[in-house]
């Protein structure tokens, strides 16, 4: 069952300091987060033999907290996918739903927690890559506010959108891991000190107290969703209502354009970020015959899989002369519009709730042929990255025996609000 959860199994022990908050805990780390001396492949042939000479900031913080890292987890190549099937190292099964995908792109991290191979895990979320696999594998996953967690040592896919986020079996444990990794870092100038003045930890917020909580339900995020998923979602909201929360419907008209805007921005950033893989300083080499353009073209043809090529080419196209205004500039307008819509909806609600994924986990192999269909599965998660906001996916129940996740979105640096609301569903 646990097959292919890890690309590399390796024990990295933390500080022997038994007082660390994660002493005695095991953590699985997504294979796009750098670990000194342990290969970090990003699920790609391009980096099959790449061994980072330094640790990501989050890895240093895990070690300082006394955690034991148990391995580097399988993922969609460079984080580009929703099923973990684009990994060069092979697809994997969902431990909570046999025959189905674990979600992606951090599928191995969610599965490691679901299968009991690690107490906790780290993933990265560019357009839902922590929340989707959390929902599909029946575990908790948090996507932090942009700027809360350092990206130093995270191999970049789309820097303006991505954050490293934690997985766990419970909301409280997941929040404990967030407490360890959060906070400003000199090595990532996009990190910020959270503006709030609370001294309490994120884990302390998991007190299940939703009495008086106001929940907005964006109607657009329920449209077109699977019936069983929607039913499970409303049952979970009724549960929160019984505990004293109230809900009202809200409208976010901008999210109708979120998937397209997300993909234009993410692919554009990817085309630039992945230009560094030329096989000279690291990665798969194209050899030394012919001129450098020939060598780079060969290195990249061999090293990248289909989905990565697709995104680099479309990103290159969207940024090319004559198309920049049509695609990239309009996508930035859509991003600003999405932010405004969320700000407005969160001015009359403490949190917003929706199904994390509009569908239950796909069958293995079901979705690889139609990329656009696959991109649309991210409809409920990508708006949150466009708006830079924090969100959690928490198990809400099952439909036909398949896990369903509920997504709670809060205002910027409102991690405690989403943690508190999510903990009431356990």
């Amino acid at each position, binding site marked *: 069952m646990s097959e292919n959860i890890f690309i590399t199994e390796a024990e990295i022990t933390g500080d022997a300091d038994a007082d660390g908050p994660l002493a005695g805990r095991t953590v699985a780390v997504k294979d796009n987060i750098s670990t000194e001396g342990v290969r970090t492949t990003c699920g790609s042939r391009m980096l099959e*033999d*790449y*061994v980072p*000479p*330094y640790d990501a900031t989050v890895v240093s913080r895990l070690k300082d907290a006394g955690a034991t890292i148990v391995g580097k987890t399988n993922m969609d190549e460079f984080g580009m996918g929703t099923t973990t099937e684009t990994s060069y190292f092979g697809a994997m099964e969902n431990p909570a739903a046999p025959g189905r995908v674990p979600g992606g792109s951090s599928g191995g991290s969610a599965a490691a927690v679901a299968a009991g191979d690690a107490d906790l895990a780290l993933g990265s979320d560019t357009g839902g890559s922590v929340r989707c696999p959390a929902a599909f594998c029946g575990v908790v996953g948090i996507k932090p506010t942009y700027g809360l967690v350092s990206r130093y040592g995270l191999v970049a896919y789309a820097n303006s959108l991505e954050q490293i986020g934690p997985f766990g079996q419970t909301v409280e444990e997941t929040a404990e891991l967030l407490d360890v990794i959060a906070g400003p870092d*000199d090595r990532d100038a996009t990190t910020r000190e959270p503006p709030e003045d609370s001294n309490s930890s994120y884990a302390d917020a998991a007190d299940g107290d939703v009495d008086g909580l106001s929940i907005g339900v964006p109607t657009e995020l329920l449209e077109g969703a699977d019936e069983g998923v929607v039913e499970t979602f409303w049952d979970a909201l009724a549960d929160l209502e019984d505990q004293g929360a109230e809900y009202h419907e809200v409208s976010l008209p*901008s999210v109708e*354009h979120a*998937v*397209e*805007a997300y*993909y*234009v921005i993410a692919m554009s950033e990817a*085309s630039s970020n992945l*230009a560094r893989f*030329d*096989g*000279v*300083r*690291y*990665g798969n*080499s194209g*050899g*030394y*015959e*012919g*001129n*450098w*353009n*020939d*060598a*780079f*073209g*060969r290195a*990249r*043809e061999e090293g*990248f899989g*289909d989905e990565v*090529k*697709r995104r*680099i*080419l*479309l990103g*290159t*196209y*969207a940024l*090319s002369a004559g198309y920049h205004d*049509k*695609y990239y500039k*309009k*996508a*930035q*307008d*859509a991003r*600003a*519009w999405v932010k*405004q819509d969320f700000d407005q909806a969160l001015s009359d609600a403490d949190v917003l709730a929706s199904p994390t994924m509009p569908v239950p986990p796909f069958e293995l192999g079901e979705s690889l042929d139609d*990329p*656009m269909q696959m*991109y649309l599965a991210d409809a409920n998660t990508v708006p949150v990255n466009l708006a830079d906001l924090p969100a959690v996916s928490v198990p809400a129940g099952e439909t036909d025996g398949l896990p369903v996740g509920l997504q709670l979105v809060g205002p910027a640096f409102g991690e405690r609000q989403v943690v508190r609301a999510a903990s009431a569903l356990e």
Partner: protein
Amino acid sequence: MSDDAVNPEEVRHVAALARIDLEDSEVDRFAEQFADILAAFETLDEVPEVDRDADLANVMRPDEEHDCLGPDRALENAPQSEDGYFKGPNVS
């Protein structure tokens, strides 16, 4: 790539810009898929112009010397190196 169809020559052109060699079969498959994906991206035309007043602040640090990765470590992952330098293909 025009609005109605995506022509394989244009896929080849973009692939050349991105320095990714493609097989003929890949070019044809991508041309078909890109038509679909770009048709979806066209719907961004419906997005109104939005005021983008991003709340940004400069992050500064003192300009001081600090330790960094030494040449030996930096070269560890290079497929080839020579005399402490990365070795790459011919520039011309």
